[in-house]
């Protein structure tokens, strides 16, 4: 993915050149580019006066940051306690089998990301799966298969 430096500059202009803005700046860059390309990381670190090693440490410590391009659609399976008790683990395993991808990774065709999340706070709907930004309450293999099929067709 080619990076438009103009886009990054616009984002960085919002932040005074202080190290404390590292996380917020990376979040805004990722919101725009869907992941953090290395060139963007370097730009952020330079602008804020932070060594690249610290940018790397922060981006790999906090699990919401992605240093590699993402898939077209994001699937997040909640593994909070209520969801676990209602079979969340089986849902992830089922998706891993069906999409042939391990959790935390993207399918070969770059169509789907499969991730787990530790509690979305929607426990009454357990087990919960979020596909793109849409919550699937009381998820089941059958319901998910249909949602994924519709997304692949589209």
């Amino acid at each position, binding site marked *: 993915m080619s990076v438009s430096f103009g886009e990054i500059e616009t984002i960085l202009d919002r932040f005074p050149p202080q190290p404390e803005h590292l996380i917020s700046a990376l979040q805004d860059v990722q919101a725009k580019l869907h992941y953090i390309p290395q060139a963007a990381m370097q730009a952020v670190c330079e602008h804020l006066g932070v*060594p*690249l*090693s*610290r*940018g*790397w*440490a922060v981006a790999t410590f906090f699990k919401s940051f992605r240093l590699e391009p993402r898939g077209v659609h994001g699937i997040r399976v909640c593994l909070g306690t209520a969801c676990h008790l209602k079979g969340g683990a089986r849902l992830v395993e089922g998706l891993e089998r069906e999409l042939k991808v391990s959790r935390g990774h993207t399918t070969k065709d770059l169509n789907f990301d499969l991730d787990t999340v530790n509690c979305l706070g929607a426990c009454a709907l357990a087990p919960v799966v979020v596909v793109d930004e849409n919550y699937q309450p009381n998820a089941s293999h059958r319901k998910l298969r249909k949602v994924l099929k519709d997304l692949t067709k589209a």
Partner: protein
Amino acid sequence: MSAKKAKKEQDKGLINFAINGQSVQAREGWTILETARQFGVHIPTLCFHPAVQPIGSCRLCVVETRQNGQSRVVASCITPVQAGVEVLTHSEEVQNVRRWVLEMLLANCPASRRIRELAKEYGVTSTRFRVEHPEDACPRCGLCVRVCEEVVGVQAISLGNRGIFKEVTSPYHQHSKDCVSCGTCLYVCPTGAMEQLFDQIRG
């Protein structure tokens, strides 16, 4: 010691307390570890080095402090001395922590001779836990990262990731443009693990 005398000592800037029953004196701001070393009391450490700020992360230096009927387990390298406290460096609670940590270290840093020797000092010669990376010698003590930041000032390396995936590395596992090849990290590494990593970092 009478309360009056203790107060007099304190006014001189000296703080009186006890380590393993032995009376010791320290100055304001000293840590328990510094005081212990001053008085020849041995406390094991891994992540401590006089050239950098102590961070109390390896927890091998833990001691038990007893005061006013309360007992706590604290890292002696970062705990300032307090008047009248009773410090125990080898109590049952402390030994329990140390022995389990050393046994787990044997499984996670199997390639380190220094750790094997340290464990042996405390009667730990084998481990019941799974050894997944037989070539790993890095306890993630962070000394290399801290000297690179505090002493050398270039911050070429950092600890990336977290938890069991925590690792010492240069950004993106590539050669670091900030590294000046001074070798201080090699010097300060307690297990020699940095030798395996140095070439990747400096390029």
